């Protein structure tokens, strides 16, 4: 069963196209990261899925069913900003959320404890700091222990300890078999907690799949010789790299981290009659990968 399937989803605001025919599937039990720079359409997409924005085209399903409010009750969602009644306490706000989700009040103490807000539960929401508001929103998502969580930039505004706690929490929930869909512009965050990823760029889906495949950390070996076509033929016979790219007067070989051996390459080329004039091992950062995917 897929938790969420998106089919050709589009959204335009006047002349600006925020989403351009995005399709992907979120399998059950994954931590699914939606990664993209600011303004890439992450929140727009989640807004459509939660029926607070109207799509311009395409469709989506939740739990393989036509979505409606009863299916939304099964999902703990935190979208964009913590939205609560400012004049009410955390406790009262959670009581309202529980009533909307048709769950009892008995789970409220547990979720408040999970986000360390038990002591401040009777303070008005308006007196909360940004981080506390954020944590209350996460508590509200966790109400009733839903099978699916949708979190939009969950660590925004949190201090480093808070960020680590949220990551830990997400990992725990994943271990319990829950599905978590998380939007983020922080690559590092996605890499640390997600099992799957979809990368958005200016409303278009750039890549989707297993996080280790998409965001694979690679070593790159840059090689050059006088005769590039000849060099390419020789390198084709070489084993161990995942990808070969000809870039002008240079050939790039992509290796899984730590497996590139420049000596072997040099020996292989030389024994095949090619003298290299350039051979360099470059470590490729995730950032570079992200820029490569989104630029």
């Amino acid at each position: 069963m897929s938790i969420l399937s998106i089919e050709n989803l589009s959204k335009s605001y006047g002349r600006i196209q925020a989403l351009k025919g995005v399709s992907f599937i979120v399998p059950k039990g994954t931590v699914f990261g939606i990664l993209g720079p600011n303004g890439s359409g992450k929140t727009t997409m989640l807004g459509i899925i939660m029926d607070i924005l109207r799509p311009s085209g395409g469709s989506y399903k939740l739990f393989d069913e036509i979505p409606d409010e009863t299916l939304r009750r099964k999902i703990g969602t935190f979208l964009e900003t913590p939205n609560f009644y400012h004049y009410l306490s955390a406790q009262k706000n959670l009581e309202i959320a529980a009533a909307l989700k048709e769950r009892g009040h008995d789970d409220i103490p547990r979720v408040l404890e999970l986000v360390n807000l038990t002591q401040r539960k009777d303070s008005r929401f308006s007196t909360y700091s940004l981080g506390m508001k954020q944590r209350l929103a996460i508590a509200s998502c966790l109400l009733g222990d839903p099978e699916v969580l949708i979190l939009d930039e969950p660590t925004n505004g949190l201090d480093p300890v808070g960020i680590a706690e949220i990551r830990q929490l997400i990992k725990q929930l994943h271990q319990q078999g829950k599905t978590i869909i998380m939007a983020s512009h922080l690559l590092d965050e996605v890499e640390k907690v997600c099992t799957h990823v979809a990368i958005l760029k200016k409303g278009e889906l750039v890549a989707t799949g297993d996080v280790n495949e998409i965001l694979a950390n690679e070593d790159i070996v840059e090689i050059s010789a006088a005769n590039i076509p000849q060099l390419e033929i020789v390198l084709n016979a070489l084993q161990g790299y995942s990808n070969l790219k000809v870039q002008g007067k240079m050939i790039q070989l992509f290796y899984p981290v730590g497996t590139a051996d420049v000596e072997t390459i040099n020996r292989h080329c030389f024994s095949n009659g090619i003298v290299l004039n350039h051979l360099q091992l470059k470590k490729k950062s995730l950032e570079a990968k992200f820029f490569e995917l989104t630029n």
Partner: protein
Amino acid sequence: MIKLLKIEWMKIKNYSAFIVISCFFALGIFMANYLVYYFKKNVVDPADPTGLISGGSPFGFPNVWQTVSYYSGLTLLLPGLLLLILVTNEFTYRTHRQNIIDGISRIEFTQVKLLMALIIAVCSTILVFITAMAFGFIVNTGSFSFYGVSSIWFFFLKALTYNLIAVLMGVLIRRTGFAVAVFFIYTVLENGLSLVLLVWAIKIKKEHNIDLGNMGNYLPMNAADGLVYSPFGMFTNMANKFLPSDYTWLVFSLAIAYMVLFYFWSIQRMTKSDL
């Protein structure tokens, strides 16, 4: 719907603006009527002991129904204001989004607000009914009678119209301050426009002898107002020779039509647009 009403109650029962405005409204109804009563007793009665101008005792049965309905109607902007705040608060706090995310439909979200408009109108009407009974028994000039109690029913329609306008403006404008300003400015503008229409109707009646009725009453708020008349009918009776007729059935139908329009417009707005 019971579940949604319980949630609305959770939202407002600890909300100070709700408590303050409700108290002001209850006090307003009493004060409006008491001031008229006081004025009538201490200023009009000594000058007009036969009741020629004022037309008998407005606070005794059966006139009291009409009197209290009319003067209480002047305070109806307050429940409207309350609804406007309750609706626009959801947009300000973005809880309208969260409510829908957490598991109610857009239509349910809107319907419960419209239902609140109905409930507040019913509560206002009960309050007016009790006030009328109280004045009637205290003044005690005639024997108890339900004759003319239909004024209370018209008061209810007026309250409901005002409340529905407030909900509609709330969902259309969304920002509290701006919505409240537009609500009040609209009230003034509509009254102004209504007066212009009335003068025009008088002119047409006089010049062409065509009676289009009191056209000033054809606008939403004035249609609702037009259902409850001032109890001091003497002047109106004299003026009727010049004034166009009051087509109560038409004004009544218009009031209902406007309410239906406001209901569907609010739902249409909330179900079709981005939130």
